């Protein structure tokens, strides 16, 4: 039990970070984080160390988020309000000088990520934010390596196209 407490301590920020990016939300993440660790706790007796614990945990996070999406019956997790925000951002950011500001870019990327499919958002987050290799992402998502590479490339292209349109 003490080991598990240490495990929570060392991974909790990563779990919140991942949940924040995958859901595009900042509030109400605690329930999902709690569910993630409860699933990990229940699954630990079956964890045989074939994969890294972090890989195992990432997989649980992805499943928790997918379940949350399913529960909300909204695969894109975008609400009309978010779409409005997105358009507002696109127009207000017409000045490239403003867009070039890192904070603005960050905000724009967050908004762009929300427009992608959950799978694309997951792959981009795992690769860029979490620095996972293609092989690790393939293991986390239980997908072939080639598929992961293709999805990653296409997801980034989609995001890039979206962002390019904003600065037109």
């Amino acid at each position: 039990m003490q080991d598990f407490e240490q495990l929570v301590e060392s991974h909790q920020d990563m779990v919140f970070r991942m949940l924040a990016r995958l859901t595009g939300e900042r509030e109400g993440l605690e329930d999902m984080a709690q569910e993630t660790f409860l699933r990990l706790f229940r699954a630990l007796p079956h964890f045989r160390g074939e994969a890294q614990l972090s890989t195992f945990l990432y997989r649980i996070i992805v499943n928790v988020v997918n379940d949350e999406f399913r529960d909300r019956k909204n695969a894109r997790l975008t609400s009309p309000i978010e779409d409005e925000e997105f358009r507002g951002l696109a127009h207000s950011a017409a000045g490239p000088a403003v867009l070039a500001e890192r904070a603005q870019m960050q905000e724009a990327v967050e908004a762009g990520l929300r427009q992608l499919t959950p799978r694309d958002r997951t792959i981009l987050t795992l690769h860029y934010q979490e620095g996972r290799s293609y092989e690790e992402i393939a293991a986390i998502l239980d997908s072939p390596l080639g598929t992961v590479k293709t999805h990653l490339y296409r997801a980034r292209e989609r995001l890039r196209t979206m962002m390019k349109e904003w600065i037109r």
Partner: protein
Amino acid sequence: MKQNPVPDARFEAELDAALRLAPEVHAPRNFRQRLMTQLPETPAAERPRTWQLPVLAALVALLVGVLAAMALQFGLAGWLARPSILLTVLMIESAIALGWLWRTVVSR
């Protein structure tokens, strides 16, 4: 028309940097303590479901057997004896096998 276009290389670098930058989110204070109170004493090991796979395999085998018997009844053997049909079936099976091999072995 673009107004003051951002150079592509710079744009790409900024996009990568923004993707790499994690949101400023941290676990709330006392999250760990609250979580620990929710946990059962020991992780409940799920009951092994060892019976499910053999039962499923038996049902699938039965289904395949019934379908094969029906197909033979309706003249599948004669139909398969035609070289063009046999060749087509073999090619389809080979493609499926190669696809499976690629997915499960080569691309992992």
